[in-house]
């Protein structure tokens, strides 16, 4: 177990660093999907295989593709210097995020988790379904949340279409209109 954990953890974190530090945007996207796969592996370890499937399907499958589309439409050449992709907040950002991470880690790990043990997660899609619909041991609010999420997804799709619609008379290759 620990071996698997260490492997997955290092893979996830390395890919995360790769997202942040790579000079090529496409490389960043691929590193990101690698990180998602690592998380998916974690989900399997945590007795939620259905969720792991969700993760792969949605994140690696859909979100990555959408982002790659976004990259394609907003094309930038690959840069040679590291400094072009990084803004001036590098060191202060580093300090702050190390602080945040340390704080989070400290707060979370200082608790007494000795009474816990693995094995409480939903082992298959059935229990997951029951949880999502708010029956069988999970808080019943999930029923409402489930419906709300579906509406949210509809709204998001419509919004994305509306926002990115090309207005009449607008072309891609015209000069910058200021």
């Amino acid at each position, binding site marked *: 177990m620990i071996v698997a954990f260490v492997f997955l953890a290092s893979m996830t974190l390395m890919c995360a660093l790769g997202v942040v530090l790579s000079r090529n945007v496409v490389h960043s996207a691929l590193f990101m999907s690698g990180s998602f796969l690592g998380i998916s592996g974690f989900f399997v370890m945590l007795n939620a295989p259905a969720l792991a499937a969700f993760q792969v399907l949605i994140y690696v499958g859909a979100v990555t593709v959408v982002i790659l589309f976004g990259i394609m439409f907003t094309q930038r050449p690959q840069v040679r210097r590291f400094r072009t992709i990084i*803004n001036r*907040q590098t060191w*202060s950002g580093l*300090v*702050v995020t190390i*602080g945040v991470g340390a*704080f989070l880690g400290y*707060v979370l790990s200082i608790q007494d988790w000795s009474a816990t043990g693995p094995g409480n997660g939903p082992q298959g899609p059935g229990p997951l379904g029951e949880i999502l619909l708010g029956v069988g041991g999970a808080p019943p609010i999930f029923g409402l949340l489930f419906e709300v999420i579906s509406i949210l997804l509809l709204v998001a799709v419509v919004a994305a279409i509306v926002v990115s619609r090309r207005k009449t008379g607008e072309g891609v290759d015209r000069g910058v209109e200021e």
Partner: protein
Amino acid sequence: MNQTVGQQLIIAAIPVLPALVFLILALFGRYIREGAQFVAIFGVATSLVFSCFALFFVARDGAPIDFAVNWINLEEGGSFPMGIYIDGLAAVMLVVVCFVSLMIQLYSGAFMQDDKRFAWYYAVLNLFTASMLGLVVASNFIELYVFWELVGLCSYLLIGHWFEKPEAARAAQKAFIVTRVGDMALFVGIIMFWRATGTTSYQGISEAAQAGFIGSSLFATAVVLVFVGAIGKSAQFPLHVWLPDAMEGPTPVSALIHAATMVAAGVYLVARTYDIFVQSPTAMLVVAYIGGFTALMAATMALTKKDMKRVIAYSTVSQLGYMMLALGIGAYSAGIFHLYNHAFFKALLFLGAGSIIYAMNSYNIFEMGGLRRRMPLTFWTMVIAGVSLAGIFPLSGFWSKDAIVVSAFAEHFYVLFAMALLTVFLTAFYIFRAIFVAFLGEPRTEAAREAIESPGIMTGPMVILAFFSVVSGLVGTPLRDYFAEIVAPSEFATEALGVEPHEFNVTLAVVSVVVALGGIALAYALYVPKPERAAELARRFSPIYTFLDKGWYFDALYDRVFVRPAMAIGRFVRQFDRRALGRLVTGVGRGFSGAGERLRPLQSGGAQNYALFILVSVLILGVIVGAQYAFLTVALIAVIALAAVALGARL
């Protein structure tokens, strides 16, 4: 003693009416303008009628009018009533003040005709009248002090009425500041009395002093301090320097304030608190000698003046000295009698001077000349006033001045007697010097040739005052002294003084009249047939001449000792304020705006910068909320957050 409410209202209305007139004129003056004089005259005339009532009551009943309301009551700290106390002395003063004020206000209608602050002039004049009347009827020291200050304020406002003239503004300031010195001493004296006896009423303090509640040295000091207040107000030595300069104000103002009323307030104070004064023989001596010395000193200063008003001003100082002298040696009735007579002829002298300036716009007697033919009314009224002032039988000045001189002799104050007699001589000399030079001879300037008599509304009051200058003395002749019956010191004071009434000393009367006539003759000899003689004399004795002309160098002395250092301090303070404090204040402002300027780059406009600050805030909040965890973590996170801010804010 027990007045009906109606009578009390009438009495109370005496000072209140002019105060009401002041309010009306101050608020609505710019709409009323020329009508202000009618409103004012109506008010003062009514007050005069009521004052006559008051005098009638007091004379008939033989007992003073006395009522009061409780103004401030501090339980343990004592109570301060505001009351009205009118005995014979106060009643006479009320009538005098109202009457002279009425004359002046009639006169001012023409004199101040084209003045641009006509209504305000009348307003302040009435405020002054109200304050003076209030001062007269005051029954305790605190009430007196309130009106005392008010009177000083009005004097300042009126002297500086033409404040566009820098000399007038300076004179007003000088008057106020010099009398302030006196006022401070008066206040200290009042407080000393209050602390020692717990009351501020005249009777209360007098009784307490008799009972021995006040230690004798303390008592003497307090009494002398009160007298210093009187010195300031009545322009006695050494606080006399403001009165001649106060002549910068309009002449009717000089007539009212600096002849008849305000300067009399000091004498009135001594008379009013006579019961207290007589208990301190030291204080009485101080009063008498300062009065006598001032009389002589001021008379010498008047000898050389070219400005008609200045001559009359010094004359006022000198005559007030006479009154103080009288009070100091115990001749209470004589002193007050002189006060009463002096009001009439001194006011008349001023009004005459005003008449001259109305006609020819100059006060310099050496620019006048020959006005006898051109302004006969003015001439004759001024001659009457001058004769009365000199003390020639049978005009009013004779009776009162003679009474004082005789008292001085009879009480064995020979030094004072000599001073008084010498002053008689000098008085006659200087006033007739002024009159002869101004009215006799040939006109010396174009303006003098063109001068015409003043309008009726100005000469009317002058004639009335001239009439009174002649007859007012007849109420106090040795044949039947009505005056001394009404205005007498209390029994206690009479006992304490131990003066016996003395008979009319014919020899001394003749001596004083002869001395006065001698003064007039000398003036005639020096100035009328061959005027160059006077100039010759002045050149021969020029150091003495300059000494007298410069007012015994008092002004120069005070200037060196007090005024220059004060101005230097003022300049220093102003520089300090401008440099140090000013810079401090603007520095604070600039500091804040500088801090703001330095904080401005924090708002960079970059969203990621803002996100950075959000994370920093989260950290800080986490530290604050989770402070229960190990102190080390707290310190660590604090350091991280500070480092992040330091790095981030440099963007």
